[in-house]
């Protein structure tokens, strides 16, 4: 069953019917959502740099351009997987904040914890919170939106009750850890490299493994997937654990990047994460989209946010831009899907 070889009947039918002719790889790349988002990011960077050259050309500007989106990128990765399985995880911002504070507290209590271990702790703790979400969604058989809306407030409440008006400052954390926020290898910031490694691993998994394809199968038709014998409960659980773990990783990156963590760390992050995924072409109805698109969506959102003040627009408008982009993206998806459907009907009738 694990063989990916196509059945001969399908192969045999393909060349005869022009409707089944594959588009050339070049056309596919240019027509994809990923490409248009990437072009949008480049355009924004270009226009903003014309306005204020330090935006890109100064060493700090270039680094910030890559580092700032990294945190959102890893969280959007997890969110994309959850949305592909036709759920949504609104609690990621709270998970990120809780994990970031845990990381800070652990560093205060045990300053000598090795940094890689701290990353593992962040992933595990986030994954544990994700497991709570996943168990409630998978076994309770209720919409993920309501469950994660509940845990969004519960986790944030726990964070505020635990933190109070305390906060972790940069001086409380080892300098080696904080250096991660500024360190670079070959000119690329370490945090960005970590995020990109996570991206490549997840993209590979989703595209090339049986487990990865099952996420898509469950998202495009849960009933059919279950009838076919896929373990829906297990996969949904996995998606939420993964989303939690990525939010946990985001929390560790957040601590390394900003140094100060209070009870409001990551507040409102869920909207950005859902926005990044949706703008990047992950349909909220499940079953389609790529994590690369979600990652580019994250880049777009963060870059716009940083470009607005340079372009002379107060950053109060950032949220409105996010909203307009989300709406634009879902309308675009709908229009494309309708057109595709129409085309297929015409082909069938011909």
């Amino acid at each position, binding site marked *: 069953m694990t063989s990916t070889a196509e059945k001969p009947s399908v192969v045999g039918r393909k060349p005869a019917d022009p409707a089944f002719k594959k588009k050339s790889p070049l056309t596919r790349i240019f027509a994809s959502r990923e490409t248009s988002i990437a072009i949008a990011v480049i355009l924004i960077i270009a226009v903003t740099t014309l306005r204020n050259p330090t935006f890109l050309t100064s060493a700090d500007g270039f680094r910030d351009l890559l580092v700032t989106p990294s945190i959102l990128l890893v969280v959007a990765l997890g969110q994309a997987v959850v949305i592909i399985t036709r759920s949504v995880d609104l609690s990621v911002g709270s998970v990120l904040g809780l994990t970031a504070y845990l990381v800070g507290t652990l560093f205060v209590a045990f300053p000598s914890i090795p940094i890689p271990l701290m990353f593992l702790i962040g992933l595990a703790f986030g994954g544990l919170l994700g497991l709570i979400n996943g168990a409630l969604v998978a076994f*309770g058989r209720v919409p993920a939106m309501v*469950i994660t*809306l509940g845990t*969004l407030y519960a986790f944030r409440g726990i*964070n505020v009750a635990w933190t109070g008006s305390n906060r972790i400052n940069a001086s409380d954390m080892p300098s080696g850890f904080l250096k991660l926020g500024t360190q670079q290898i070959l000119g690329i910031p370490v945090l960005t490299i970590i995020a990109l490694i996570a991206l490549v691993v997840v993209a590979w998994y989703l595209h090339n493994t049986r487990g990865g394809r099952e996420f898509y199968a469950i998202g495009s038709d849960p009933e059919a997937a279950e009838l076919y014998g896929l373990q829906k409960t297990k996969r949904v659980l996995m998606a939420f654990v993964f989303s939690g773990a990525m939010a946990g990783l985001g929390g560790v990156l957040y601590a390394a990047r900003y140094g100060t963590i209070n009870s409001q760390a990551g507040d409102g992050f869920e909207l950005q994460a859902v926005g990044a995924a949706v703008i990047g072409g992950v349909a*909220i109805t499940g079953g389609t989209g790529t994590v690369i698109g979600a990652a580019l969506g994250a880049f777009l959102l963060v870059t716009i946010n940083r470009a607005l003040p340079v372009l002379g627009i*107060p950053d109060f*408008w950032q949220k*409105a831009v996010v909203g307009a982009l989300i709406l634009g993206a879902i*309308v675009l998806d709908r229009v494309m899907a309708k057109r595709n459907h129409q085309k297929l009907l015409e082909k069938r009738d011909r």
Partner: protein
Amino acid sequence: MSETTAPRTYKDFAQPIVRRLLLTRESAIIALLIVVLIGASLIVPSFASAATATYLMLDVATILLISLVMAPIMITGDIDLSVGSMVGLSSVVFGVAFQAGLPVPVGIVFALVVGAVGGLFNGWLITHIDLPALAVTIGTMALFRGIAVGLLGTTAVTGFPQEWTKLARAKIGDSPIPVIMILFVVLLIGAVWMLHFSKFGRGIFAIGLSKEAAAFSGVDVARTRLILFVLSGTIAALAGVYFTLRYGSARGDNATGLELQVIAAVVLGGVSVFGGRGALHGVIAGVFLIGALSSALRLANVTSDVINIITGVLLVASVIASSVLDWFKRQRARRALRSATQQPVTAG
């Protein structure tokens, strides 16, 4: 067992009316509300007072108003996450109009128009572009809030005329009941009629059970959903005006996170998250339950974050509760079936 073997009619299978009334989600939540009210009065010293009752009603008024339309929307199987942002936006519009020197009633009209247009925008995207309500209202949640914050930044409009701010906090005569409750009761009567006694309301339940079946039986599905979203935006704007006058300040971040409290109250009140089931008396009990809990906890000096935790846990618990109950019912049915098949029924 009786000697006569008269044919059993459907009445033999119906539950007695007392049981039917006592075993609904709505009755359970009303009972829980009464328990909380009595418990809080006994444990928290200052809870059982006229002043607390007034504050409780003033506090929940915003949520009460919005839940009147959120309940029907969730019964159709949709959701409106943008209501909290619409409260903020209408507050800003109201404030900006007042700042520009317009009289308060004109500002209210402006705010209501913005609410109706925002709701129409939501409804149009959902019904005419055929998009999921969740996706659309996540987008407009950011958009409405973004416009509100963009228009006023971190500044606030204050200095509304005293007669208006006082009216928002005024009580009816010597009673502890705030004036705003008159408006609520009027709208409630309208909502009860709309949801439980009109053809439109039966359409709402039908849509929640099955959109296709509702369409085949003559319900104009798109129109019904569109109207509900317009009503939702308008009533959120009305709540925004009340919110602004009550606190005397129009700010872009007013009522952040309000959508959770509304949804939590509606779900707690017995509206199914899958649509098709729910009643307004349960929803109102749900609103008051959350309000009374947080009011009692605040009087007992419990901080607002613990209230947040409780709200979140209540929301999760109330949606899980029904599926856990279903599971138990299924188990019991299976056990009954097993014992029935193992030993044939013998006459007693």
